[in-house]
């Protein structure tokens, strides 16, 4: 009994000591940014009007070297603000970046500004209460969001982030193959014509076969005839599950037809080999891909995938002739302010600047309505490794004639919906169940998720 007591005391003493260590360690951690911030005033003291210096921590998954020039430009304009960059991924991987962000937030890191790659990640984190609503700050500045940005980030009346880059979708075509097959770059087309193109572009056999097209594993490739709709273009719109619809049926039939005619890279290869769309396209394994703006720069070649052929651009196909081509849901990166920040106003000023002028500096395709498209294209060509491999005429046509559909920000459980949906569509394309069963099961599965999240 005595021994037990002794052990208990010993353990609790050790625990207290350890906890003490932990506390003091975290104290010093907390202190360091503060102390560095307070040592700043001498350096930045010359700006008279502004208040005391603040440090804003900005988290993004881009490599530090890409972001630093922009942050430095902002610091030069705002001497009282010090921006500290938190690199979420060393390879520019946004999925890994989001995991790191979650871990940092969970471990109490005092971040101020965070970027999120796409509406799904944005709504998930807004739904968890991580982001602070910006409504008051926007009202204070006196701007109308829809005049400034082409994406509406409102969730249930609250705005938790500003749109950063703009992503809409179009088709990338291998122009060399197109010329060889005697096909023109389409400016107006339907999915049916897309499949015809794919058929004509398919050539060769064996491992070096060129397929007409490649569909990646993302959920959007199972809803191609839905994401080119101007309205109600999500799996679940305002609580109503949208699976049992002509658009989803058409999307699935489109995929199945391409698979059966062997004009698209077989789905079995795609999943078992974990194929990536960049390598499929740039190694000329697939002649066309449906993709988004982030590939404009890559079309001019990158270190990993140099451009060996000319890339042309075509608008998103429509579902039937008579409907406009080029409609696609607009997605993009979002930038928000974390709920725990102590510098709301300064952080807001920064994200407003970043999502407008900062974007212009980086030459990304942004959701800011005042961006100069011609300047953007010119600079894309300037920075590309092989500028002559980008077909500027078709690129200009696609960008200027794009009809970004207003994105209804997806529900906070969008990730789960997509997972449940692709599970059924996989069984369909691998010929484990027919179309009707797929539609029925997916409709039920998604309804269950919607009900569980009510």
């Amino acid at each position, binding site marked *: 009994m005595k021994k037990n007591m002794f052990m208990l005391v010993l353990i609790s003493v*050790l625990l207290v000591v350890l906890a003490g260590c932990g506390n003091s360690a975290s104290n010093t951690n907390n202190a360091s940014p503060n102390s560095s911030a307070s040592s700043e005033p001498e350096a930045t003291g010359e700006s008279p009007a502004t208040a005391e210096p603040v440090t804003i921590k900005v988290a993004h998954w881009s490599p530090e070297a890409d972001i630093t020039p922009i942050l430095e430009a902002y610091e030069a304009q705002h001497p009282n603000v010090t921006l500290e960059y938190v690199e979420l991924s060393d390879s520019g991987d946004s999925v890994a970046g989001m995991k790191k962000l979650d871990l940092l937030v969970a471990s109490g890191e005092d971040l101020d500004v965070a970027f999120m790659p796409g509406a799904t990640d944005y709504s998930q984190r807004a739904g*968890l209460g991580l982001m602070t609503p910006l409504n008051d700050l926007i009202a204070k500045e006196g701007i109308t969001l829809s005049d400034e940005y082409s994406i509406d980030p409102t969730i249930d009346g609250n705005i938790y982030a500003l749109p950063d880059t703009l992503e809409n979708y179009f088709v990338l075509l291998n122009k060399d193959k197109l010329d060889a097959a005697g096909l023109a770059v389409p400016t107006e087309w339907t999915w049916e014509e897309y499949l015809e193109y794919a058929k004509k572009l398919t050539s060769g056999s064996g491992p070096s076969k060129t397929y007409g097209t490649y569909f990646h594993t993302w959920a959007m490739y199972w809803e191609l005839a839905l994401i080119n709709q101007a309205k109600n273009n999500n799996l679940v719109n305002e609580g109503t599950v949208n699976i049992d619809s002509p658009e989803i049926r058409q999307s699935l039939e489109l995929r199945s037809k391409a698979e059966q005619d062997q004009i698209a890279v077989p789905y079995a290869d795609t999943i*078992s080999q974990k194929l990536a769309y960049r390598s499929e396209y740039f190694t000329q394994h697939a002649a066309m891909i449906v993709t988004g703006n982030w590939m404009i720069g890559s079309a001019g070649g990158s270190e990993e995938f140099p451009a060996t052929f000319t890339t042309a651009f075509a608008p998103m196909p429509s579902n039937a002739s008579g409907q406009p081509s080029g409609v696609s849901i607009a997605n993009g990166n979002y930038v928000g302010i974390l709920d725990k920040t102590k510098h709301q106003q300064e952080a807001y000023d920064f994200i407003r600047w970043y999502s407008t002028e900062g974007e212009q500096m980086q030459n990304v395709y942004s959701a800011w309505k005042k961006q100069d498209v011609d300047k953007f294209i010119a600079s894309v060509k300037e920075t590309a490794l092989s500028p002559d491999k980008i077909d500027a005429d078709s690129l200009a046509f696609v960008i200027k004639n794009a009809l970004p559909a207003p994105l209804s920000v997806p529900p906070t*459980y969008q990730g789960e919906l997509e997972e449940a949906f692709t*599970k059924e569509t*996989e069984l369909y394309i*691998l010929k*484990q169940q027919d179309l009707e069963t797929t539609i029925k099961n997916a409709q039920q599965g998604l309804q269950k998720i919607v009900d569980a999240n009510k």
Partner: protein
Amino acid sequence: MRMGYLFVGPMLLGVMIFTLIPMIFSFTLSFTKWSFVTGFDKIKFIGLDNFRALFQDDVFLKSLGNNFIMLLAVPIGMVIALLLAVVISNHVYAPGAFKVIYFMPQISSVVAVAVVWQVLFHPSYGPVNGFLSALGMDNPPKWLADPNFALPSVMLLMIWIDLGVSLIIYNAGLKNIPADLYEAATIDGASKWAQFRSITLPLLTPTTFFLLVTGIIGNFKSFALIKVLTDGGPAHSTSVVVYDMYQTAFVDLQTGYASSMVMILFLCLLAITALQWIGQKFWVNY
């Protein structure tokens, strides 16, 4: 005596902080609705709701089922390892070289091994299917891309990877069997098969028991191979509880729900191990 506690103190402390407290925490979390990215003030106790939801969750039930199917890989792997161990220790030249060969997959990184097999299993141009179609098979299975074959393919790889360990341990077990037993049996006129059945097998039962317990626990927790090879797909056909838990906790950010999955996994493992300890009385000879 007091000094004794002082010596085990650091270890005890480590176990408490890194194992015991997280375990209790996770147990508590399984009764809550909570996401680890939000603060502690957002924890909401919901009683047994998580467990109720679990037993209506198709993906979880499928994953649990896959776990039990995958257990088959353990006894199959052990039988192969035992046969190889007997052959290698008695009937081949350079047994050391063979041990190294069979141990190779174990010391290679799971990721590298998985990528190699991914290519071997390539549905259209892979060597495996090339061989099968050369034999005259019209429609060879698509292996990792076929919902019916993906799980057996993964099990095949597991057996192959874990073969080395079982082989080495069986080999050590074989060395411990006194040679005079075999001598006496030979003099009595026992056949090789009778010797194997009445001497080798019974004297190896402690080894078999050890391999079975560790193998089943390891098998239940397999994650890396599945993550790299199939991501639980196609259509959850290779998803297991640990993978589903990872997906729920770190992708869907539902920490509470994921914790309740862990509790079920823990109970399953506890029950299986308890059964084995009770069962060993009837077949293990020390």
